[in-house]
């Protein structure tokens, strides 16, 4: 059961990573980040079966942080769109010095 869970978690995480790296739409990238967080959650739960309940407790923390992050992140994206009329990250390089 552990192996299958970890395998599925890895696949989910990889999909998230590839999504973050390849997509340009900020919303989609944001969703891919959520995907990666959930892949991590899955791994925590799977390990909790072997190493004790601490992993499950951690999942709650991650979900809480992810919820907060979703709120802040979506707010940033909205602000970005208002400013630049786009959410295509290739056209946004405000971080450049």
């Amino acid at each position, binding site marked *: 059961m552990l192996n299958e869970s970890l395998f599925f978690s890895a696949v989910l995480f990889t999909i998230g990573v590839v999504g973050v*790296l390849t997509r340009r739409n900020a919303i989609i990238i944001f969703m891919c980040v959520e995907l990666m967080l959930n892949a991590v959650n899955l791994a925590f739960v799977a390990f909790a079966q072997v190493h004790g309940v601490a992993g499950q407790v951690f999942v709650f923390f991650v979900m809480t942080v992810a919820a907060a992050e979703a709120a802040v992140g979506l707010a940033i994206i909205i602000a970005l769109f208002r400013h630049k009329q786009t959410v295509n990250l290739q056209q*946004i390089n405000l*971080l*450049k010095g």
Partner: protein
Amino acid sequence: MLLIGQEAATAAQATSALSRTAAQWLWAVPLLPLLGFVLNGALALVGSHLGPADPSAAPHDDASHAGGGHPAGAHDTAHDTAHDSAHGDDHHVVARHRFAALTSIIGPAVLMLAFLLSAAIFWQFRAVAGDMHQPYVQRYFSWIPAGDLRIDAALMLDQLSLVMVLVVTGVGTLIHVFSVGYMRDDPSYPRYFAYLNLFVFFMLLLVLGANYPVLFVGWEGVGLCSYLLIGFWFSEKVNADAGKKAFIVNRIGDFGFMIAMFMLFANYGTLDFHALSVAVGQNAVYGGALVTTICLFLFLGCTGKSAQIPLYVWLPDAMAGPTPVSALIHAATMVTAGVYLIARSHFLFAIAPVASLTVVVIGALTAVFAATIGLKQWDIKKVLAYSTVSQLGYMFVGVGVGAYSAGIFHLITHAFFKALLFLGSGSVIFAMHRAYHATHSHEDAQDMRNMGGLRRYLPYTFALMWIATLAIAGVPPFAGFFSKDEILGSVFMRAQHSTLADARWLGIPGNIVLYVCYALGLAAALMTAIYMTRMMIYTFHGPNRTGEKERDHLAEAPWVMTGPLLVLGILSAVGGWLNLPKFLTVGPIGALERWLEPVVGESALRITHGEAPEVAHSVEYALIGAAVAIAVIGIWIAWSRLDPGKLVPKAQAPPEQGFERVLEHKYYVDEAYDRAVVRPTYATSRNLLWRGIDIGLIDGLFVNGSAWLARGLGWMGSALQSGQVGTYAWVLVLGVLAVVGAITLR
């Protein structure tokens, strides 16, 4: 060693018969000229601060000539610039300095006082000289105490230094007086006297120093003053260059002097003359490599200061300075410092036969070499400059063979007649320049071809310069005859019987070397007579070639200039009395030799195997006859070859051909040095040190290189910061993969 020396010297100070005489004022002798330097220097500085005294009183006749709104001063400067760049001539006639009158008193007066004081010291010294077995030393303070090295600021008075002090202050006083007239209208009049006073101070320090470092301070100081006075009219580049040349060439010699001092201290533990002579006497090996090396390095210093081959090249260029400077520094006193140094280091040279022979050979070669160049010079001062180099060669031959008193004797007589010749030439140039200045001609006032027939216009100078010419040519009974004859006789005697004759020099037996040097000395004497007579014919005889208009302006200089000439003329005529040869039965025979005997007698005897050098009377008469015959023949050759009536001015003179051309160009030695030393140095400095190392390596690689490196790294960094979140994410992921990979694959 050091303690012995100090105790001995202290004892000498305590018990010296001189302690309670005028000699206790010894310190005042050098300090008087120093006082003059301070006062005149202050006047020069204050004067330059205040500006010229009265601009409207400036150049008298120029103002009228310059006409329409052309400032007199500007005209004068332009005139002299054109003039000097061509000929390196003297005289810039502008307004008198506002403090000129005060300086005219201070400058010569301090010298006069110093001379009177040293004469008083001489008088008392003479009375007690018999009881003096050690030099009289005055210690003032410990100058350089460092470990084993203890150097005192101390002056030493013995027979040798006293003779030098009298010559320096005596001839110096006369030349100071002459300068009052010669430099009368120079705008930097107090500065000139300040330098001249400072020079005398350093020269007295040089001859009175009780150890090598004090002597060296004087040695460097006179070099400094020489530089300052050669480049006195430094606004002309030629003069400034001549000063630099003298200074740089002298540095090469000073390097040798310093090495010699280091070696002396390292091996004998002291630099005090008296203590060192004791230490060397106890420890040094006769003819050893160490003492020979030290002597050769000392002699390298002498070749620089006293203008011997290969470092003589600065002295002819030194004529760019005012003529009285040439007389005092570059003929009578400073350039003889090398001769004094060898006489002072007699205890070293007496046990280093190879080094002594080197001194003799270099001296003899220089005497001949410079004399040949003197045959074909046209500038009256250049003739005298090469003559000085040649006569210095004689002095080195004298001290080299251990005839120290003969060398010093020639030094003294040479100071008389060469100072007279230079001051006489100064008088001639003064008259010539005034004449050309009056008519605004740009002809060369120092070229002998433009002179001729000056005896009608400068009768006193004419007569006095003939005395000096006969003296330098070696015609009895003038001074030069006795001193030159004594040097040549000493060489001949020592070739027969001395430690030098037994030694070998570069594999050649010493006696052969000495005989060859004797022959070279005779050849130089012949040429001396020729070029001096030639100079006199060109300058004073035949019709005048100065020019129709200028002729009316030629006149004898004022008494302030002819007065010193007269005194020097008398000295040149009777200076031989100082040391009459033994074959004469009248007068004070060998006075100078007996006077110097306590100082150098032991070393001189050591070279002649402990016996006073004697030759048969017939041989002595033959030697003297040869010397006189050669002088007369030389004068006769010059008279017969040059017809005073047929000489032409410079402008019409045909160019020289063949060997004469080589002589006129001084064997192209300056050009050869330029190619061999100066230009490679320039090229190396320019291409390797400047363009290669400074611009390329330091500026290029280190300074700009580090800037480029920082900029390059920054550019790379800024390229990474594209602001593209995607790129950052890629980098992040790659980083994570790398870390994970590193951990898992470890």
